[in-house]
């Protein structure tokens, strides 16, 4: 019984305290995680990766951020409307790129002939693919973060308790 209460106290303590170790390590790690995500995004047309995996890495780093630093503090910086905006913006850019092809007299979502393709193998190549990859990266990271936030909020009652 005593053990149980001790354990419970520890749990509540963990729930509310700022853990120095976690914060420092995260401050160190987060830039690298996000850089890696960016690398995956920008090299989607050159190496394994692309919009979804890169976006997932960045989104995971954002989740890590909001888990380590307290949720409320993150919320005003990365609030729900922002992530929905990223969502919609990513999808809209995708559709807009499709319409660019239409505008120039090609079919919907045409790449060749509409966008400069560049030299295959270089970073700035492949026209539409790179743009869409970046848009998808923004969208997917927004999606992952907003799913996380929704589930976290949805699981709590009116007072914000889990």
């Amino acid at each position, binding site marked *: 019984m005593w053990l149980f209460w001790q354990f419970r106290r520890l749990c509540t303590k963990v729930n509310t305290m700022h853990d120095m170790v976690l914060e420092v390590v995260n401050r160190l790690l987060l830039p690298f995680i996000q850089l890696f995500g960016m690398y995956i995004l920008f090299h989607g047309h050159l190496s394994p990766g692309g919009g979804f995996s890169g976006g997932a890495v960045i989104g995971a780093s954002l989740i890590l951020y909001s888990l380590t630093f307290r949720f409320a503090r993150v919320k005003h910086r990365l609030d729900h409307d922002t992530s929905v905006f990223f969502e919609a913006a990513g999808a809209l850019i995708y559709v807009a790129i499709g319409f660019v092809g239409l505008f120039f007299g090609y079919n919907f979502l045409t790449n060749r002939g509409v966008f400069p393709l560049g030299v295959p193998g270089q970073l700035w190549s492949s026209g539409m693919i790179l743009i869409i990859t970046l848009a998808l990266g923004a969208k997917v990271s927004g999606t992952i973060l907003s799913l996380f936030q929704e589930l976290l909020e949805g*699981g709590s009652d009116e007072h914000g308790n889990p």
Partner: protein
Amino acid sequence: MSMEILERLYGNIYYLTSVILFVIGFHTMLTHRNLIKKLMALNIMDTAIFLFFVAIGYRQGGQAPILLPGVTSFVNPVPSALILTGIVISVSFTAFALALVVLLYKHYGTLDSDEIIAIRGKKHV
């Protein structure tokens, strides 16, 4: 005759594995009552299908389909491309199902499908 079938099965061991995974997932789906376990079963089944799909694309000695100089033999890129889509769809389904599970737990106070049906049935009558 049966020896021949066994040999073919051994040759297609990846397909066989994914089929077995599929059946395991289906079994869990049918027999377990916990909603979270049902979702896991769903994911196992999806994963089995993904494994199957990707296994179709393999060719003996093939490399990842990135056109670097010096590489001449590639695996079939089409299944991999399709599976990327499949994975995202599976993620979406799981996310929404989890949200529904959260709501169900809030309303019914249990994650047992039989209990939920019992509670709902009582209310209906």
